[in-house]
């Protein structure tokens, strides 16, 4: 598949290399990995776009993860990725180089800057994609995302506008294996005139919560947990396994659990070794957040619950007595020193 040069701006595949004070975020590498696979089929170059100052090791890592070119604009005014000047820079680069595809991580920052750039250059943007592919017939980027509250995935294309822009949440795509023998070139670019209508007065950095995003084991609960007090059982099992508690959106909406525990499209994406989903029916927005779990155990009373389609292990049962039984068994064994003494350590 070669690039159709008849299309306006049939350039390369771009990935925004978002960083925090020079430390490149994992989502940038995840996007580069997928961009590399797609580019090899389209025979297009992959460029990482890097506003602000990042050291040589960071640039090398971007190349090892799949970038052919790294466009840098090492203006100190861009170091903290201020949104206004970054929008100016990215829109300017898009107009100048006309990439075919521009992928951005769906972080807080990306979810603000991506739509601004898309609107400024007048192109389409698809939020929170869970799959990206190339249509072999048209060469268009197929952007798949969960949609419409039902059990549906919608595939979206941007036919006539360029670049084809999409955001992907951190943790949704696997991080690529880095190939340090790859060669790439650094392309410094001049910034356009930069504006800034936002002045930072203060920044409060909150200690990162014992996040579910990084947890190896998660026990999660949905509506089938029946009452808020039953969440204690979920937490107990999570504690016994040295893991974290997660919940589905209805529980957050009902005020039973903080939003930081929410797994799904509007919550956290997780990638644990083991996820035990208790009383979760499996709305697609929720499934979107747990696609990277290595082993998914689903417990639900309804044998037709959609979550069973995604589960490695299905347990048709009421999760409350089952959890009670499990917690009892595991606690007894733990007292005997049989299980989890290491895993349960913080």
């Amino acid at each position, binding site marked *: 598949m070669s690039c159709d040069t008849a299309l306006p701006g049939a350039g390369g595949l771009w990935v925004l290399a978002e960083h*925090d004070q020079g430390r490149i975020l994992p989502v940038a590498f995840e996007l580069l990995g997928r961009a590399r696979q797609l580019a090899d089929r389209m025979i297009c170059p992959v460029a990482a776009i890097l506003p602000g100052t990042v050291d040589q090791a960071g640039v090398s890592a971007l190349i090892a993860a799949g970038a052919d070119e790294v466009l840098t604009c090492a203006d100190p005014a861009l170091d903290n990725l201020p949104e206004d000047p970054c929008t100016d820079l990215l829109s300017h680069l898009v107009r100048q180089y006309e990439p075919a595809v521009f992928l951005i991580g769906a972080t*807080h920052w990306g*979810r*603000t800057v991506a*739509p*601004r750039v*898309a*609107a*400024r250059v*007048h*192109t*389409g*943007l698809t*939020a*929170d994609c869970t799959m990206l592919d190339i249509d072999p017939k048209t060469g268009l980027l197929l952007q798949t995302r969960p949609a*419409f*509250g*039902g*059990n*549906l*995935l*919608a*595939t*979206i*294309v941007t036919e006539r*506008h360029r670049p084809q822009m999409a955001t992907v949440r951190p943790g949704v795509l696997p991080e690529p294996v880095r190939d340090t023998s790859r060669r790439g070139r650094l392309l410094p670019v001049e910034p356009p005139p930069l504006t800034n*209508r*936002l*002045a930072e*007065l*203060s*920044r*409060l950095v909150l200690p*990162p919560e014992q996040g579910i995003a990084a947890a190896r*084991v998660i026990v999660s609960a949905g509506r089938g947990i029946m009452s808020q007090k039953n969440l204690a059982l979920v937490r107990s099992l999570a504690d016994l*396994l040295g*893991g974290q508690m997660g919940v589905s959106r209805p529980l957050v909406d009902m005020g039973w659990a903080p939003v930081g525990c929410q797994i799904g499209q509007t919550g956290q994406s997780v990638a644990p070794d*083991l996820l035990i989903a208790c009383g979760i029916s499996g*709305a*697609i*927005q929720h*499934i979107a957040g747990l696609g990277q779990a290595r*082993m*998914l*155990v689903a417990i639900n009373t309804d044998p037709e619950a959609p979550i069973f*389609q995604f*589960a*490695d*292990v299905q*347990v*048709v*049962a009421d999760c409350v*007595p*089952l959890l009670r*039984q*499990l917690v009892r*068994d*595991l606690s007894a064994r733990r007292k005997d020193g049989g*299980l989890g003494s290491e*895993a349960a350590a913080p």
Partner: protein
Amino acid sequence: MRIVVCVKQVPGTNQVYLDPETRSIVREARHAVLNPYDTFAVAWAARLGSQHGWETLALSMGIPAVEKLLRDSLCRGIDRAVLLTDRLFAGADTWATANTLAMAVRKLGGADLVLCGKMAIDGDTAQTGPELAECLGYAVVTDVTDIKEVSRSQVQVSRHTESGVQTLLVRLPAVLTVAKDSCPTRMPSIADLARGASRPLECWSAADLGADPDRIGQRGSPTRVVCTETPPMKKQSRRLEGTLEQQAASLECIIREIVS
């Protein structure tokens, strides 16, 4: 000084239907509610409007039945409402929606502050607010948790970031998208309901906006849904049979294999 608050009707439940032809969402009056995030934008607009004596206006694009939701906003302290309704607006993606709302804001003579909910719960994109800001050439801050120190030229806001909370001074005109629970809301009183009933509510068509049909609705949308499908099934899956005790025992074995 003028505050425009943009609101959207969303399905009140998960019962959503797709048009089999266009694969876009079928919007019905039944079970429709105001997007929950937008209720906080309306509350902020009413509060800032009454504190500073600024004019407040609610704006929505949608089917004629959305009038009911706009009337509700008028009962919650908004001065005036405009509904953008036309078959030509249907099937708009976030860019076409932002462009349509921007045309309406310009027709109103612009705004000093535009407030939106952080996102809508049906599409979950959180794109329309920032796109609207760009279409208007205004500054934008997303996920705002607090608005204070409002002057005629700037506002001070706090917002969520990846690592904590940031406080910013924003030059006006600006679009702010507000977070859940960022402003207290309350039920309208009888007096509020009477006030809301007497407030002006207009409907504008594409022609009223002087809109180019190639830049609104489905025709003006850069993105297009090409297919919808149910997610693929997972590899082999096994089911744990037996009594609750047996299921718990089997599950414990599986857990011990991974967590050891």
